């Protein structure tokens, strides 16, 4: 999951297994959340978003769950593939148009 510190949390999964990446956000007033994927040497890429009035949202092979009680987000990736290897960030929208990003989790898919 997400953490503050110098070392990126890591997650290794076997190809075909499901992955769960966690994120703790900071502000209970945040009203919108995004998950991004960042491959090495590239900019972050949008995966899925969720508004604070929802608990769950599904996309293609991905599901985001939001637990506002404990300020926790998770990203579930079904049938993980080698192309899913990347760093995953959550971002929360706070006041105005500013987003605050987590430090990221590095996902490695083992063939």
């Amino acid at each position, binding site marked *: 999951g997400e953490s503050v510190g110098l070392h990126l949390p890591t997650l290794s999964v076997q190809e075909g297994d499901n992955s769960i990446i966690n994120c703790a956000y900071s502000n209970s007033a945040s009203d919108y959340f995004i998950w991004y994927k960042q491959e090495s040497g590239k900019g972050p890429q949008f995966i899925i978003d969720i508004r604070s009035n929802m608990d769950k949202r599904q996309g293609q092979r991905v599901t985001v769950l939001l637990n506002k009680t404990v300020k926790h987000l998770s990203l579930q990736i079904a049938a993980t593939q080698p192309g899913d290897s990347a760093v995953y960030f959550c971002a929360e929208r706070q006041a105005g*148009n500013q987003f605050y990003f987590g*430090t990221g989790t590095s996902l490695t898919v083992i063939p």
Partner: protein
Amino acid sequence: DAGITQSPRHKVTETGTPVTLRCHQTENHRYMYWYRQDPGHGLRLIHYSYGVKDTDKGEVSDGYSVSRSKTEDFLLTLESATSSQTSVYFCAISEQRSSYEQYFGPGTRLTVT
């Protein structure tokens, strides 16, 4: 990919010199952002713009200035670069109608020696 380019892609400069990074978009999006990315900190907002000549500070704006004279261009200037500004800089754009999704550019790696 959204039409966002950043220039230069890589730059090495000396402490005390001015540096300008450019972000160019072809999507006509209203919002543009500058972030820096450092190990252990994730992405942090430096400045953003919500229209031509309309800008605001982000979380880590000290030592940086921005300008947006045209919809398509957003410039980030380090007036006097310091080693602490060594980082990877990302530009992002957003329309913020049905979604707040931001589209990111490829990044600029800046090294201040």
